């Protein structure tokens, strides 16, 4: 028997899976009802499991589909077009919830847990954030101390997505007994472990049916092989997993944005005012074109990041750029969609209002955009050499990229290491860089998709203009820093006076 001929190709698997996903959405998922109930019903979780949605990135050797991140992202985007809570459940499971176990788990633990995770019998959750440790992960207090042949864990993790019903928690904890006082490690804790308890569901602005809870660990004991990777390597593993997770989130944002754009196109071509469809007015045309171009750039950049994730290597900068660009793009597109729907958009029946509130969190979780931009910009200032980028065939964009490279070099020479601590400098450079990356990804995609050339060219024009705006603003950094320091000091004084130590 010719096995190779019988085995479905990746493309065929994806085709079937997309069909299966759409069937699941059509049959099982009523986003308004799910949102109103405040949780994803058990039967929806079970149907998602039957459709293979928990198996996406789990290796085939362990009962999963072994899909590349890019394909998993396609499915998450498909889910997000209909229900962002369901997409978040699946995306978190495929990303942060299982990634570190897949890559760094011991053979025995992978064999034990991965098949159950692929089946959806256990859903994955991830916990790094704590009440006192948000963007500042170094402030984590949850601690695991070596004891006998295992670890004793105490602490509390906040905002744990999927936490209410998860079967396996991957946690970033301090492990001062394993490689120095400041060492962190990643550890898996199964739900049934004595001492692990889950708080009530948080009431949220958006993705209201997604599970978000606090997870407490009181005197929890797990065997040493629940550790992932090398003891003390937790911070590196967490950054690696976050890089992966941010790509999944970026692709999810493209799905939400696609929904909002489609709803808008249906509306502006049907709704008539002043004897013509409102979509025929120049202002509406410009808004719709900008939405479409932004979405094109979002998809291009998310896809580039997904391909880079598959290729291996350091994903930090690219995944952060994709996450920032796609989360902001989705929010802007949903906001424009709501505006173009007029008062109708403010009502629940169009679904656009839900899309708007559902995507708001993506600018915050898995790394607040503001912090990611500051870090991205600091990275640009200390990078060893800015790679020469080949001409794009788009002269205005090439000129912008040269200006960006020149300004990075100038600021680096002028401020040295100190420049990395100037947040207005780093975040403005980073915003320009995000524009450059999105434009470059759009141009490269258009090269293989001739029918998209016009849309890509418009996207690149818009991104080039925005990039220049960010670079123009570099001139005002000193005065902005001074003004902000003085004004905030005044504004804070009545609030901070009673609190100073």
């Amino acid at each position, binding site marked *: 028997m010719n096995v190779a001929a019988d085995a479905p190709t990746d493309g065929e698997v994806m085709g079937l899976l997309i069909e299966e996903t759409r069937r699941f959405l059509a049959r099982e998922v009523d986003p308004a009802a799910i949102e109103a109930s405040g949780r994803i019903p058990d039967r929806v979780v079970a149907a998602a499991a039957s459709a293979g949605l928990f198996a996406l990135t789990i290796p085939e050797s362990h009962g999963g589909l072994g899909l590349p991140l890019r394909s998993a992202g396609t499915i998450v985007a498909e889910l997000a077009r209909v229900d962002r809570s369901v997409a978040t459940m699946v995306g978190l499971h495929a990303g942060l919830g299982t990634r570190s176990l897949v890559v760094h788990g011991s053979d025995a633990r992978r064999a034990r847990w991965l098949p159950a995770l692929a089946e959806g019998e256990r859903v994955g959750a991830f916990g790094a954030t704590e009440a006192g440790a948000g963007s500042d992960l*170094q402030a984590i207090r949850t601690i695991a101390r070596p004891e006998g042949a295992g670890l004793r864990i105490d602490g509390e993790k906040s905002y744990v997505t999927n936490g209410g019903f998860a079967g396996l928690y991957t946690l970033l904890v301090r492990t001062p007994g394993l490689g*120095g006082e*400041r060492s962190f490690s990643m550890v898996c804790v199964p739900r049934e472990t004595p001492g692990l308890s889950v708080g009530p569901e948080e009431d949220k602005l958006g993705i209201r049916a997604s599970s978000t809870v606090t997870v407490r660990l009181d005197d929890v004991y797990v065997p040493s092989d629940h550790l992932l990777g090398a003891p003390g390597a937790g911070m590196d593993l967490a950054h690696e997993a976050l890089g992966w997770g941010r790509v999944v989130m970026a692709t999810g944002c493209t799905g939400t944005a696609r929904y909002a754009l489609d709803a808008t196109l249906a509306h502006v071509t049907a709704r008539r005012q002043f004897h013509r469809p409102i979509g025929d007015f120049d202002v509406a045309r410009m808004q719709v074109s900008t939405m479409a171009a932004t979405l094109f750039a979002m998809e291009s950049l998310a896809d580039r990041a997904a391909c880079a994730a598959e290729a291996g290597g350091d994903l930090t900068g690219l995944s952060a750029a994709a996450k920032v660009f796609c989360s902001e793009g989705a929010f802007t597109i949903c906001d424009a969609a709501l505006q173009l729907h007029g008062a109708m958009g403010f009502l629940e029946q169009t679904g656009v209002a839900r899309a708007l509130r559902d995507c708001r969190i993506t600018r915050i979780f898995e790394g607040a955009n503001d912090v990611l931009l500051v870090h991205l910009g600091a990275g640009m200032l200390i990078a060893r050499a800015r790679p020469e980028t080949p001409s794009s065939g788009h002269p205005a964009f090439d000129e912008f990229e040269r200006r960006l490279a020149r300004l990075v070099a100038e600021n*680096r020479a002028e401020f*040295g290491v*100190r420049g*990395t*601590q100037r947040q207005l400098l780093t975040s403005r450079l980073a915003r320009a860089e995000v524009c450059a990356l999105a434009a470059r990804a759009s141009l490269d995609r258009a090269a293989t998709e001739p029918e998209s050339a016009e849309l890509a060219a418009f996207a690149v024009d818009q991104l080039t203009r925005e990039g220049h705006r960010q670079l123009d603003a570099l001139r005002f950094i000193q005065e902005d820093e001074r003004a902000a320091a003085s004004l905030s000091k005044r504004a804070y004084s009545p609030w901070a006076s009673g609190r100073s130590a």
Partner: protein
Amino acid sequence: MTTHALLVDPPARAVLSDDQIRARAVHLLATILERDPETVQQAHSLRADLGMDSLSALEFLSSLSHEFDIDLEVEETYGLTTLNEVVALVTQRVRGSL
């Protein structure tokens, strides 16, 4: 991390001994890491022993620039791995810039 109580007046730099520079660097690092200066050793690796990532290392180097009023260029910070190496660089720059 914006308060640097130890800010050195330029004329005072001339009389700083190596030990004083070292002590100030350790104090600064301990403040950033919120730990007891007594527990910081010269041979400590910034990453493995002190748990610093590239961002907290940048914060430390930048604070040293402020503290001693020296310009640390990006290139000269490549390859620094231990506190000793950082202190040696800073000492050299403090002496060199007088």
